[in-house]
């Protein structure tokens, strides 16, 4: 039963939505959601397995996942900015800065914990990326029905998740210290459950919009 939590359930539902609605999508950027969400589910289940069965810390699996999360999400934001002639050099600069920070923090903590500072910086960058997307949409003179826009709902989901998790990320060490014993009833657990539900619901809706758009 440990494998069935709100997190794993919403992630699996979102993966199924991606598989059903994006399977035949012509855009590779959207299609990559299927392996990415599969990886997310696998990471989550792997994390639970490590914690409950192997009785070891599961941060290494999340540290590796963070690389994929940053790589894919950044690439997808870049894909959304492409119609507005966003230069690729910014994406490469961000990837370089992220890798430098990630490796620096890993070395700093002796590979023995979660790279929380890198995760916090990544969240802030994604919040800014979401806001920049809104700015581009507001500035664009062409009208687009945003209520049925797949990219708009994907960005909104990402904004909710990364903005909402800012407080938790900033106090991650503090919370980990005081809540490690009772994680399942902790504030961190509740907040991340709520954020997961919001983000994956928005993303699932985005996949439906994308499917309808394609039809």
């Amino acid at each position, binding site marked *: 039963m440990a494998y069935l939590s709100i997190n794993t359930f919403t992630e699996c539902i979102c993966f199924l939505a991606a598989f059903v609605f994006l399977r035949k999508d012509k855009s590779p950027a959207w299609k990559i959601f299927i392996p990415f969400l599969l990886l997310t589910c696998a990471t989550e289940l792997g994390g639970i397995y490590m914690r409950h069965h192997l009785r070891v810390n599961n941060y290494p699996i999340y540290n590796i996942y963070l690389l994929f999360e940053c790589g894919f999400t950044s690439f997808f934001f870049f894909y959304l900015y492409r119609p507005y002639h966003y230069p690729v050099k910014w994406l490469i600069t961000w990837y370089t800065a992220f890798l430098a920070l990630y490796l620096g923090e890993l070395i700093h903590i002796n590979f023995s914990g979660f790279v929380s500072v890198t995760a916090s910086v990544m969240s802030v960058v994604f919040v800014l990326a979401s806001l920049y997307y809104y700015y581009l949409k507001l500035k664009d003179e062409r009208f687009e029905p945003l209520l049925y826009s797949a990219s708009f709902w994907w960005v909104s989901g990402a904004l909710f998740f990364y903005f*909402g998790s800012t407080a938790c990320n900033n106090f991650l060490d503090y919370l980990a210290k005081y809540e490690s014993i009772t994680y399942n009833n902790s504030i961190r657990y509740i907040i991340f459950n709520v954020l997961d539900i919001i983000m994956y619901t928005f993303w699932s809706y985005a996949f439906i919009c994308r499917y309808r758009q394609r039809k």
Partner: protein
Amino acid sequence: MQISTKEVISLIGLTSVIFLIAPMFLILYVLSYNRRKKQHRDDTILMQKNFETELLKTQMEVQEQTLKTVAYDLHDNIGQLLSLTTITLSSVDVTDTKNTAEKLALVEDLTMRSIKEVKALSRLLHGEEIVSRGLASAINFELEWLRRSDKFEVVFNYDHDLSQLDNAKETILFRLFQEIINNIIQHARATAIHINLNQVNGACILEITDNGTGFNVEEALSRKSGMGLHNMVKRSAMINGTASIRSTPGKGSTITIQIPNL
């Protein structure tokens, strides 16, 4: 003062809730702005459609006016010339050589005049071409017919180096001119019409003055029909212009139409 762990955790929870509410309002704002964008787009399309409809109507009115002029000319001018030709021909007595020669010369003259009139009419029938030759030229052409009636003293002054407006604007301005002249003919009982077409600070100004009976502008505008004055104001505004109507009963009227950014 020391803050307890419980208080810190509550504070983190509260901050997270606030951090969740903020994006919600942001999304609502973006959606509402987008709705306004849609409204603006719909309004622009509607305005464009209205402009196109009004332009089409104007073009049809110009054609209608041309056909009216053709009908009057056929009836009053060419018809009379041809009737006179028939009468002259029927009165020819082939035995009276001297008179016959004179009558045939008259018939020839009448026929030549008829041909000239028909040629002029043929030119007029190409109504759209008139406007494409430029506004001043179109106005001149229209006034030619007015001058021939000998009922009015017509003076037309214009800038010879007047820049050309775009086709739609010229058609509408020309139709406004036709409407004003029609009003003068039908209602003003004027004897003189002065027309000025100038370019001042990039704006095209068409001013038409008559010495007719004049009218009370406010009263005319308050009436529903308003002698087409409402239509003039509306159509001027449609091409970003203004129509100013000044009139004093007994002293004639002046109508000025100004179209900016020539």
